[in-house]
């Protein structure tokens, strides 16, 4: 088993193949993964690229808590989640979550739990760069 932190923030492109290696476990019969991709639109606006920033001290703590909760709630063997920060182009991976478990149900459930809680609780912010030239911090409802 790996000694990598279960949740981390990365300034470099995420590497699913490498991340997946941390989840290999001879007890596991299922691996569920989730990739969040940068898409070229949001709420009817054409988006050229995204910028993610974080409050690392708290984001790392909260991310670790979420993965620990997944271990308490579901019968899983291993879990890892990584979130990208910096400027991202369309099609790049913004977030990656992987969970291995003896059975698929727990793997799916835990994977979904982790991504939903990351989106709701971890202090990471997204700034959209629109094709029309403007930018906006998502969820702040304030054009800049």
């Amino acid at each position, binding site marked *: 088993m790996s000694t990598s932190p279960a949740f981390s923030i990365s300034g470099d492109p995420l590497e699913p193949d490498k991340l997946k290696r941390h989840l290999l476990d001879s007890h596991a019969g299922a691996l569920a993964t989730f990739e969040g991709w940068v898409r070229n639109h949001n709420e009817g606006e054409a988006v050229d690229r995204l910028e993610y920033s974080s409050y690392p001290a*708290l984001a790392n703590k909260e991310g670790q808590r979420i993965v620990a909760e997944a271990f308490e709630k579901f019968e899983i063997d291993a879990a890892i989640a990584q979130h990208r920060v910096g400027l991202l182009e369309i099609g790049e991976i913004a977030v990656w979550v992987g969970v291995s478990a003896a059975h698929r149900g727990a793997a799916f459930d835990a994977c979904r739990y982790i991504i939903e809680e990351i989106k709701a609780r971890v202090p990471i912010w997204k700034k959209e760069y629109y094709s029309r030239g403007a930018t906006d911090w998502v969820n702040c409802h304030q054009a800049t």
Partner: protein
Amino acid sequence: MPNKLKIQYFALLREQRGLDEETVETKAATAEQLYEELVQKHGFGLPTSSLKVAVNDDFADWNAPLNDGDNVVFIPPVAGG
């Protein structure tokens, strides 16, 4: 005695303040009072109802007392993933 606090800014608040962090001397007793003071000074557009607050790198209650040397962060609505 006023407290000396370190404030870090992220995302929209960082843009509105034009700074990553600053040290302030304040008589504000709670994070809520501190934020109201900063709204008066800097005109931040987000209300406390849409923010969370962290003291010393952990989520905190808006009404918890502030102590000299605390590190305070106001957290705009998150949007990871």
